[in-house]
């Protein structure tokens, strides 16, 4: 077993990149329970631990609910904690996730997107992350194996920041990214240590220690509850500028940037824009280039920060466009549209009334192909010309 002692490029799966990143961030406690398609992450971490290159308490729990509670308590005791899950596991953590968020416990969690229970699809889909959107966690979603590596490192920097102190989920598409092998640059351990060193210079956060009479988890009654909720909301708002700042720091340290909350691609002079997230972004970029060749002035917005929702940056990117399409790999029950679409529609006061189209594609490992995205762009273009359009379209 060799481990990166110097910056090197390796062919890693998305899961492998997630595990390497976690190891480089030196967690004190890792809580692990297997689930497809996440298992490789915790197997890899177990191997690092067995080989003595990951010096942590590796807690092999008996379920995801316990994984979340172990991680939460370990951070409240003063440690750095990491866990990873997916789908059924994520929803099995639901009560514990509220606990973690309510305690402002800076846990970092990987969620490998997979369809949740009910229709038993062992398949990719983002419905799992949508189901926990109001649990008070910060949620990031990424596009590539390198971005999994880099965003996991940024997630620790963000979660433990004194101004934030919130748990963070890094989401990536199961199958499309979890098992996709790409070349990934692994940073030096020293570089990651240096990048995260700023966290040690902050004012200390309160931690639970023997002999120190400090309660963790008091009854929040009346205004006590309201105060903590308001503070949580304020911290969520601070995540937006902080992520931009952290992204810039990351670029200075590692030479890669992901434009913070959202990434705009050829939107500047675009008439129409497609908004999406996750692994579909790569395909969409290719199709946007092809459509540009054909003379269609189309741009692309990639959502990286899902919670808090990047209201300001997304509004800026979409303002003045003639029509907007939003591609979701999940659905918003009761709204007959995709969740990202639903949220983007909430920006109407900022961007004005223009045709807005919802595309639902890629459920249960159905490939979001170049052809599909071509159809979507054609639809948006038609709507921009003032022609009738279908508000919600399921593909294929």
């Amino acid at each position, binding site marked *: 077993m060799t481990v990166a002692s110097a910056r090197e490029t390796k062919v890693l799966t998305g899961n492998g990149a997630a595990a390497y990143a976690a190891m480089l961030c030196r967690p004190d406690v890792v809580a692990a329970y297997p689930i497809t398609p996440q298992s490789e992450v915790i197997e890899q971490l177990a191997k690092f631990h067995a080989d003595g290159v990951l010096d942590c308490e590796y807690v092999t729990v008996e379920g995801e609910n316990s994984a979340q509670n172990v991680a939460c308590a370990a951070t409240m005791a003063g440690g750095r904690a990491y866990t990873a899950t997916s789908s059924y596991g994520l929803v099995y953590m639901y009560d514990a996730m509220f*606990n973690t968020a309510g305690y402002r416990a800076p846990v970092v969690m990987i969620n490998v997107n997979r369809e949740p229970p009910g229709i038993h699809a062992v398949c990719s889909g983002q419905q799992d992350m949508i189901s926990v959107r109001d649990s008070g966690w910060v949620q990031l979603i990424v596009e590539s194996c390198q971005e999994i590596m880099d965003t996991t490192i940024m997630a620790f920097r963000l979660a433990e920041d004194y101004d934030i102190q919130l748990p963070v989920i890094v989401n990536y598409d199961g199958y499309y990214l979890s098992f996709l092998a790409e070349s990934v640059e692994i940073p030096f351990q020293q570089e990651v240590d240096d990048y995260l060193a700023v966290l040690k210079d902050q004012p200390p956060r309160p931690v639970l220690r023997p002999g120190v009479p400090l309660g963790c988890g008091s009854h929040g009654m009346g205004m006590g509850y309201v105060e903590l909720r308001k503070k949580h909301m304020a911290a969520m708002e601070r995540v937006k500028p902080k992520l931009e700042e952290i992204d810039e720091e990351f670029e200075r340290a590692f030479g890669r940037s992901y434009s913070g909350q959202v990434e705009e691609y050829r939107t500047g002079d675009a008439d129409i824009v497609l908004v999406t997230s996750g692994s579909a972004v790569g395909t969409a970029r290719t199709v946007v280039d092809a459509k540009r060749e054909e003379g269609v002035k189309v741009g692309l917005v990639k959502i990286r920060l899902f919670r808090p929702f990047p209201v300001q940056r997304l509004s800026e990117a979409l303002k003045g466009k003639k029509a907007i399409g939003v591609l979701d790999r999940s659905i918003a029950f009761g709204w007959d549209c995709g969740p990202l679409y639903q949220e983007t529609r909430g920006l109407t006061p900022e961007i004005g009334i223009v045709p807005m189209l919802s595309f639902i594609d890629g459920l249960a490992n159905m490939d979001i192909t170049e052809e599909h995205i071509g159809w979507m762009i054609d639809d948006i273009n038609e709507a921009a010309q003032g022609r009738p359009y279908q508000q919600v379209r399921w593909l294929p």
Partner: protein
Amino acid sequence: MAEQRKRQPKVCDYYQNEDQFSPGVAFCSGCALELNLRFVSRVLGKDIIFVGTPSCSAPVLHGQNVEAWHRHPYYACTMTGVGSSASGLTRYYQKAGIEATVVCHTGDGCSQDVGFQALSGAAERNEKMIYITYDNEGYMNTGIQRSSATPFGASTSTTPTGQVGRGKNTGSKNMPLVMAMHDIPYVATASLSHLEDYAKKLAKAKEKAKEGFAYLHVFCPCVVGWKIPTDSSIQVCRDAVRTNYFPLWEMEGGDFRMTQKVPNPKAVEELTKTVGKFKHLKAEELTVLQEQVDMRLRHLQALCAATAAETDA
């Protein structure tokens, strides 16, 4: 003070510190749980970290907003997350080289029902902690509903008596034995009527928790839920021991041992006739309960004999 010391010299010897709980806390009048909490705190010392959940003990352990009723470090968690949260705490302390005794303190509903998975998992991993179940045989805080600790025949708000209903129609889960089957370093039962025995077990649990998991199951009547007078909970505890309804034993490193011999056990009816939740039981139903008590005692005696442990009581 000197006179008080003379009356209970052995129990007082186990006290590590003054009472860490404030007077006038929000427990019911005559609550055995209050005595249990104060006792555990005094015997285990003020440095212990309590882990608890929404329950009867929550109003006192959790505190409200920035107000607290005790001076212990305290971690509140969901009922599903006690064994796991305590694991998170102890594992971090081990990693950081911090010496700590983490003490989970929950009711039977949490440990035997909704939090059982996390408890069983923590025991199987042999996490270094003490887990204390205060067994009041049901969900008392939410209005006296049945749990898996509710005994056969007991009337609760979800097993009420009526034209057809005769109380709970199944027996309780034999939780301390279930925990012993996890092969953890230490398991014991305790009763608030036998404080000296209880104190010894707490002290032993604290030592054992340095190696691994220690589990204590404490008999803890609820005056409201059991419909007993507010001055009777300790007598009910004593009757439970004397009828073998709640035998006192310990398991240490696989060896079982009775810690309180009951030479001439009374019939279980001696206990049930003083407890309102059993008042409706007919003779044949009492026989079912008695048979369960006898069966459990035989199992326990067989385990004691099999491990050839000596009885010191």
